[in-house]
């Protein structure tokens, strides 16, 4: 399996296979039947006047898939929902990205899309919070806001007419992310939800699930203290006093490893599942590092199979 | 080269194949006896070759230095700081670019010096820690070393000579870097080995050292070593490096007084 090449022993291998098989049997047959690969014909009723969406093309009157994925039909629209692929932006998506370059009046960001994204100086709130025209001085001070390699959270604003992707950060919740770690997962594992920022108060941790598959796990920052905090940091020259508290750090690493295990297994990353996995590891006294070992990996697969089976049973019972 | 480099008399270099082999046989015999033997050039184990170093052999460069240790002759030119040629990303610190090359006649067998490809990156690593890169942001300093003749301990001599050339070029440094290597034969350690000695060594150890700061910038070791032996060898090298550092310092002072006059 990708990312984790574990040396499983014989029993672990059998258990893992059983769990994965269970997952397969729990998936509705329709979903698996709708799977297509490149160049598969997608059966459609030609009289329906269908609209060909993402991942399809017309070949001699047939609708043909150009990607591997699952066929989705919404009214007249037929498209292929991809699994493993780079990020496909939609307006309003919350993303996490890394600054690559500072250009005149704009930052360029790597966001796992087919191009770099652009964040204009005019599309973000200045540190003083006042709405005003950007001056030449602001332009010269851009590096003091974000510099190369900074990790930033922002929102997709949309495509400009020249085909470039623009972002915006017009809210206090967006901005630079510090004191934590960035993880990258395939974007299809992150579902678009109402909420992508999660303050896990019980751990004092911020978890941001970027739609582009960049996931931030870091120390919790209170929004209006953000500005002050950076000032504080500059003041205290002694780094050691300023480190993330050990307890919080353990939580961050545990949550990060939960994300790593779940993404290696290809499970959709919801905040609930991440917390559940982290909790499960803590309650069964699995060391943070051992979460990446074979045993916990198999256990996680088994737990997920059981969880989905229960869910299905409840659903059927309710009916 | 200035007149003082010459020794007055000169004798033809005896480097024919037979003689080389004879010398090696002799070395082997000594090793078998495991006694203190005189080295081919008459030194004792812990004697370095006389170091002749001078600044300013090339005028086109920002700084340059020439070093001659026995048969090993090295010339280093430093250019810059000048604008980085490569389209690089924005960088707060300068770049140090090092290149070591051999003349085709540097070794007994023509063109053999080209085997030492890694010397460029080794030189870079030895110097990197001493150069104050932040004093020339967005620019590059080029260090070009040319080995005119290879006579053993090439890399340490290149490193020492390069740091002299950097100082001559007025590049800001935390300290000079000097370097010395030792060879190990059985339980004996000999300092500043010649090519012949290097060809028969059981192991070798090289230290690049900042004498005033007492920090090691580069350390390499081959062959099997026990702990105590490493400590001894490193200390021996550091002591030699400190003394070599004094020589470098004197050369720089000489140059300074000359320019003042």
């Amino acid at each position, binding site marked *: 399996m990708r990312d984790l090449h574990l040396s499983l022993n014989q029993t672990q291998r059998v258990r893992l296979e059983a769990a994965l098989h269970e997952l397969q049997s729990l998936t509705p047959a329709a979903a698996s039947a709708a799977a297509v690969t490149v160049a598969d014909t997608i059966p459609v009723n030609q009289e329906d006047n269908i609209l060909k969406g993402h991942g399809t093309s017309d070949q001699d009157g047939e609708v043909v898939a150009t990607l591997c994925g699952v066929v989705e039909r919404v009214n007249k629209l037929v498209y292929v929902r991809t699994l493993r692929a780079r990020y496909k932006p939609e307006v309003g998506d919350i993303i996490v990205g890394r600054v690559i370059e500072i250009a005149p009046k704009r930052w360029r960001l790597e966001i796992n899309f087919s191009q770099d994204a652009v964040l204009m100086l005019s599309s973000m709130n200045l540190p003083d919070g006042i709405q005003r025209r950007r001056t030449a001085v602001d332009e010269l001070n851009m590096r003091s806001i974000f510099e190369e390699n900074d990790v930033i959270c922002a929102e997709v604003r949309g495509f400009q007419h020249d085909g470039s992707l623009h972002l915006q950060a017009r809210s206090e919740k967006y901005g630079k992310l510090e004191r934590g770690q960035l993880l990258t997962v395939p974007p299809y594992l992150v579902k678009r939800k109402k909420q992508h920022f999660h303050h896990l108060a019980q751990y004092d941790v911020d978890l941001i699930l970027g739609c582009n598959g960049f996931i931030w796990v870091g120390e919790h920052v209170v929004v209006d203290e953000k500005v002050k905090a950076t000032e504080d940091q500059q003041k205290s020259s002694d780094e050691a006093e300023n480190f993330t508290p*050990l307890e919080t750090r353990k939580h961050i690493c545990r949550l990060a490893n939960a994300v790593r295990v779940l993404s290696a297994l290809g499970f959709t990353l919801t905040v609930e599942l991440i917390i559940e996995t982290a909790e499960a590891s803590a309650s069964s006294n699995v060391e943070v*590092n051992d979460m990446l070992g074979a045993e916990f990996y198999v256990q996680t697969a088994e737990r997920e199979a059981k969880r989905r089976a229960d869910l299905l049973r409840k659903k059927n019972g309710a009916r | 080269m200035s007149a003082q480099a010459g020794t007055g008399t000169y004798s033809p270099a005896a480097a024919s194949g037979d003689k080389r082999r004879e010398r090696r046989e002799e070395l082997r015999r000594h090793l078998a006896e495991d006694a203190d033997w005189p080295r081919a050039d008459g030194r004792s184990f812990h004697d370095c070759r006389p170091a002749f170093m001078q600044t300013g052999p090339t005028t086109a460069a920002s700084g340059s230095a020439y070093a001659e240790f026995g048969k090993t002759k090295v010339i280093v030119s430093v250019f810059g700081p000048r604008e980085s040629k490569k389209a690089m990303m924005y960088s707060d610190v300068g770049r140090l670019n090092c290149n070591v090359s051999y003349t085709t006649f540097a070794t007994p067998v023509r063109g053999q010096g080209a085997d030492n490809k890694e010397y460029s990156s080794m030189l870079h690593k030895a110097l990197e820690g001493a150069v104050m890169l932040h004093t020339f942001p967005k620019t590059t300093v080029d260090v070009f070393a040319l080995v005119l003749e290879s006579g053993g301990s090439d890399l340490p001599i290149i490193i020492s000579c390069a740091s002299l050339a950097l100082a001559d070029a007025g590049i800001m440094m935390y300290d000079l870097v000097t370097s010395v290597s030792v060879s190990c034969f059985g339980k004996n350690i000999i300092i500043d080995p010649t090519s012949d000695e290097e060809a028969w*060594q059981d192991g070798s150890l090289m230290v690049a050292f900042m004498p005033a700061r007492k920090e090691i910038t580069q350390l390499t070791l081959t062959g099997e070593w026990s702990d105590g032996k490493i400590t001894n060898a490193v200390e021996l090298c550091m002591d030699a490096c400190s003394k070599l550092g004094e020589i470098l310092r004197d050369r720089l002072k000489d140059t300074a007084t000359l320019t003042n006059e």
Partner: protein
Amino acid sequence: MVGLSEGEKHFIRGGIAQDIRTDGRRRLQFRALSVETGVIPQANGSARVRLGATEIIASVKAELGKPSILHPDKGKVSIFVDCSPTAEPTFEGRGSEELSAELSVALQRCLLGGKSGAGAAIDLSSLIVVEGKVCWDLYIDGLVVSSDGNLLDALATAIKVALSDTGLPKVNVSLSAASDEEPEVDVSDEEFLQFDTSSVPVIITLTKVGRHYIVDATSEEESQMSSAVSVSVNRNGQICGLTKRGGAGLDPSVIFDMISVARHASQQFIALVDSQIAAAEADE
């Protein structure tokens, strides 16, 4: 190539200071190691080693050759490393040459011993078939397929495993009376001689971050290093090679301390590698 923001760097440094790294490891803990042998059937011995997301394939090929005149009683071993662009797009074209050369030299330094052959990982005299006439030339190649830091240690491990997988065909030589003539050589297809790999060392790279040392650094952690020391240690705890990496100067006492820490860590790692080799052999 990893670019990290100041915040992330600070977080990594803090984790190392507090002895819990970003993936939860302690400072002297290795990532998961997995080992496979016989991955290149055309070679005399081969291995695939994965250390976290770093993946290496090593191969050993033996060819009959002639010993050099200077060392008539010894075979020859050469080590080369190549970094595939599959691991990192920047390795394309000549992009990996510098790194490959650096890794090759470091491995040669650690595994081949001194010029006289003393302290080598492989006893060169065991490669002799007929003194002065026929010997084995061993070509050891390492290929970096996927890279996430600590390439040198992973390469050395892969080579150690590949050597343990290597069988040299038995050679029968019929010596003709005239010593000038080339001896006739008959290479057996069936009988193989196993290598003695017990003296092959492992390489432990200690990366210094702040005041602390860590083993098995990921590429993110490597971007934080001020300096690193790679020490090759054999089973007896003897040091067989050493390379300092990274530019910053180190106090001599720190280096000696790092050597002793590396030696300590090496014994654990050797045991881990040995158990993985045994498991890989049992799997075949």
